[in-house]
């Protein structure tokens, strides 16, 4: 099992997923995805909340309905993800703004209606095939643009920075972005014009 998918209200999938039953069946058919049925799912969530669920070692990604978990359960998952470098997606109807964090491990906090979209099935397929770069692929089809804008902000800051340690950290962030984007050019201050052109091109195409 690569992905543990905990949804305690499965009817929501039929409500939001664009191809309804077809998408649900597809997800269920994926051998690397374990999506337990309603009662079993509730049982697993209860065990996580009681901190006595044993996560499988093969796990690479946990997707969970955040509202079903207590803070104690979330901490339990956090510890597991932190130690095992497992990615985590928390979705809930109550999340007003998407938040992404890559400190220790990749984490995405996303509203249910933004999670159950046409992006979900391709993301799961890509993740299983190890072709997924980032959890942001789930959040926005323009996820590459997000990294480019971030890179431009960082490049601007590097130019203003005198502190060598801070500069090093910012350059390190830039390197990570380069790895994720794998462009035919390296994002750096010399290539900012190329970057600006690419950003403009994408925004114009939206």
């Amino acid at each position, binding site marked *: 099992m690569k992905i543990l998918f905990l949804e305690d209200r499965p009817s929501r999938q039929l409500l939001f997923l664009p191809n309804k039953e077809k998408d649900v069946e597809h997800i269920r058919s994926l051998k690397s995805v374990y999506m337990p049925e309603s009662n079993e799912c509730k049982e697993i969530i209860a065990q996580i909340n009681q901190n006595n669920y044993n996560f499988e070692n093969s796990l690479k990604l946990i997707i969970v309905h955040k509202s079903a978990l207590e803070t104690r359960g979330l901490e339990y998952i956090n510890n597991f993800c932190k130690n095992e470098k497992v990615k985590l997606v928390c979705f809930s109807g109550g999340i007003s703004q998407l938040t992404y964090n890559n400190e220790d491990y990749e984490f995405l906090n996303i509203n249910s209606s933004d999670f159950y979209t046409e992006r979900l099935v391709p993301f799961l397929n890509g993740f299983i095939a190890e072709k997924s770069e980032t959890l942001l692929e789930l959040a926005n089809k323009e996820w590459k643009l997000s990294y480019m804008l971030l890179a431009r902000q960082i490049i601007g800051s590097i130019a203003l920075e005198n502190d060598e340690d801070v500069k090093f950290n*910012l350059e390190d962030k830039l390197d990570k972005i380069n790895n994720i984007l794998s462009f035919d050019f390296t994002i750096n201050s010399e290539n900012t014009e190329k970057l600006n052109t690419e950003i403009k091109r994408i925004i114009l195409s939206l």
Partner: protein
Amino acid sequence: MKALLIYNDNIASQFVIDFEKLGSTYKYQVGKQELLNSNFTIDKKIDSILKAEIDKSKYDCIFIPYSLSEENYLEFTGLRFACHIRLTPEFNNLQTPIVFFGYETENEINKLSEIGTILFSRGIYTTEKISVQDFEKQMRFVVNNQSGIPEEIFLKQFTERVNISPSGNYATHHSITNEWSIYRWATALKIDDEYIQIIEKNISSNLYFKYLKAQFPIKETIDANNQIITEEGKILYIDDEVEKGWDIIFRKICTLKRYESIGNDFKNLDSSRIVESAITKVNEFNPDVIILDFRLHDDDFENISPENVTGYKILKSIKEINKGIQVIILSATNKIWNLLELQKAGADGFILKESPELSVEENYSKNAISEIYTILDDGLKRAKLLKKVVEQSKKITGFIEGGDYSKEFKQSVENNLAIAFKMLYESFTDKKYINYSYLQLFLIIEQLVNHESFLNGDEDIRVKCGDKEILVQQRYKNKVKRSIKLTSNGKYEIVAYEFPSNKFKRADTNFKVSSVLIYRFGNPNSSTNSWTKIYENRNTKAAHFDRKNNRFINENEIIEVLNFLSYFTDNSNISDSNVAKGLKEKTMEEALEELKKDPRFRK
């Protein structure tokens, strides 16, 4: 001049140090630990920063990058932060000029963010030049061009220009309406309670609610002391979130009434157990009016048909207990087909929670609360009569069920009782229907008295009392003999008398019912159980109501006729006290003599 810089780790540290000569700085950061708290929201985070962490001085200018997220630029947390500044009066900088900095154009940001329109609102500036010298120039420019306007107008312009949407899915929309409604109505009722304060706190930190509060300020409140429910009775409130605000609101509205609520433990129960628990409470408390939340279980928020929603099932069960109990549905739904289904199932009224769209109407909250007082008062008034009617009807149906009647006859009586109930219900909107109801109930008396188990015959009439038959009217020669006589006070008494047969048309209902009352039930006269009055009412008030003089059947008279029916159908009231006081049957000779005179037997 004093400026404020909000920044994150992606901004050069040297730049932040240099900025301090212009004013204060605040580093925005959210750790994973915070993100994983089940109560965490970005709005709560920003709200608490503005209310508790940043110095609340009046700034001349605030600088914010478009995005404050260190890893996902498209979150545009800077824009959200600025919206909070505009909608958080406690921060004291509602109208302070805000300068966004970043390498994007306004149009690009507007294209990429739902709240990008803030860039085109009053007091917002942008710059691509990120240096302290440029910021200083920018600050001088905005301060020189700044002109304050009244706060109310400023907020009005802001909410018109910037569109902030609620987050979320179907369930969240309901919770928005729920919390917004509780907040509005508790404020309008001037309720100060711990839970209301929690809701107020939640509302006051959520950007969408802040936006709504700015858009629809409450202008009028209600003096609950001046408005009371006048009718007597008991009110029960059923809700899975009973403790979350609504209970306090209804308690306030129902002051001085016997009011109880149930639902605290529903969260741990499945839908069928919730129904069971609610019905047990209804049976114990015997309420007159029930305020029932439509959705009481998580599954009810899914896309299911109304009849599978827990509130619907409870409604059906309550109506089976006593359809006179008035059920008022509390709901955030505005789906008309759901409301129609509930009405078909017997819902007697609706309290629709105030969704933000409804707040457009200036005094909506005040009017909605006044309407609740009316709905509950009307419900109590209806229940007072209808519950008794249902109880008596059930008794009557039970007696009929145990009697010697055909299936069709039983069904016919039940139908007439149901029609009478329906008419009574209608009488609360048009009084004439109470008369129709009375006539319908009287029809049942006529059905019964003409049933063979009570009385038979057209000319020679006999009343049945157990296995005995008592002759009460006899045609003999050219006379008609009767064993009872109508006295001057309108009742029949046991007095044998006779009158010429040419004056005889047919035995009327009064004679028949009186005969049954005297001979089947052993009463000394026919005025028992108000029969004399009932008969008179039937022929005067009920059949000829006078709207001009407001002369209608009243509720006591309805109960009177039902009590009479109950007495009339209860076989345990049968008594043989008067069986020997009927007319004498004809002798063999008298019968033969009659036959001889009958033209059919003459040669």
